[in-house]
């Protein structure tokens, strides 16, 4: 049983290392729609908000468009986004 537990642990580590490497590889956002919900880096090249679930741990290649901005909650606007009433 002891031997079996060790094998399971080794197997888990073997799976975890490539997964961690994959996350690290996606740290720089260069696409129009970067894939992160929470951007912990200081830079972000995209113009759209991040919609993914992975945190960003890397430094990106250009300034984050919204790093110093303020967001208005457009759900307060009737009909937003596709049916805003026309006066």
């Amino acid at each position, binding site marked *: 049983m002891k031997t079996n537990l060790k094998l399971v642990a080794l197997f888990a580590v073997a799976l975890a290392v490539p997964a961690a490497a994959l996350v690290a590889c996606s740290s720089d956002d260069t696409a129009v729609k970067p894939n992160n919900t929470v951007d912990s880096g200081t830079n972000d090249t995209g*113009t*759209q*908000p991040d919609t993914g679930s992975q945190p960003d741990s890397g430094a990106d290649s250009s300034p984050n*468009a*919204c790093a*110093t*901005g*303020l*967001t*208005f909650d*457009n759900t*307060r*606007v*009737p*009909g*937003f*986004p596709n049916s*805003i*009433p*026309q*006066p």
Partner: protein
Amino acid sequence: MRRFSKCVGLVAFGAMALAATEASAANPPCTSTGLVGTPVFIAGSSAAKPMLKQVSAALAAAANPVRLVYQSLGSCAGLSDMTTNTKEPATGIVWDGTGTEISCDAPNGGATVDLAISDVFPTSCTNITLGASQKDFQGSVQVFDFVVPPSSKETVISQEAAFVVYGFGGVTNVVNPWADTAFIFRRAATSGTYSMTAKLLGLDIAKFKGTIPGAGKSGDVLTAVHAADTTSPDKALGVLSADYADTNRGGGSAIKVLAYQPKGAACGFYADSSSTTFDKLNVRGGSYPFWGPLHFVTNVDGQGVPVNATVALVLSYFTRTGLDVATKQKMIDAEVAGYTVPQCAMKVSRTAEVGPTDSAAAFSPAEPCGCYFESKATGAAPKACTACTGDTGCSGSTPKCRYGFCEAK
């Protein structure tokens, strides 16, 4: 009884004579205020008043002094006078050597407008078309802000929200807390601020809603928004040019500026890098779209040169044509003191009015002055700027010394 009637008649005559004397002595004539300089009548934008006050001092100190006589009408009204050759009877304003404002009376029948000043492109005004012998010269950048009372909880407004607020006036379709027409303030129809706001939002100006406070000028909107602070701070909303908004971020008639989030954008920005600075960083870099160059329209000859030599001199100050370095620096100082942005401090420009999505393009001024601008506007140049006394003190990507700082060219 007859004696009493005579007395009444004499008293009445005396009163009439006194009234007549007072009327004629209310203001000095604009053409002879006792101040130095050849008068040039400039009519239009009420938002441009603080900037004109500053520039007036520079022009009065010129080798051939010029006395600006300013008639505050609204941008489109000034352009209308200019393009239809209509004489303007409105009371004028001149500034003396200490910057004190003096009201003056236009000549009988009105003053011939030498120069129209507008916050917006002439095409943004209804029924304005420049004549073949008229030209639009562009000056420093006028910035506009959505403003709320200082106690308002709001910090940012989106294009989508402002479109609904001003399109419906807080009725039927509502964006809280701006839900009361009485507190949604707008300028009068002749206002350039009004026209530019409509362009910014993509809102048909004929469908603009809201309340026009007082005479509908910049000062009236400022007063109305500030006054709402005591009763309905969250309900009130207005638009002001930065020269009015920036001078009232504190003090007795304080308002609060909002960040602006363009159509479809994820966030908005202040005109400045924060609500407490005056660097216009987001205007100059293109992140904040609510601005436009000031426009000066006058009559020109076949070569595009103003037909009035004194007007040509005035325009050379605004466009920096043929000025020595010291005079250029004076004009930068004046425009900064008037809370406008000199073109030499801009990194973007536009050739048409702003829209819901911005049309500004990258711009590289011939004689950049970004470091000097910030040193004047904020009291200190950015850390990245290098002070200099000549080109030998500059190197690398900023080899040229301009106004005491190393610039790119």
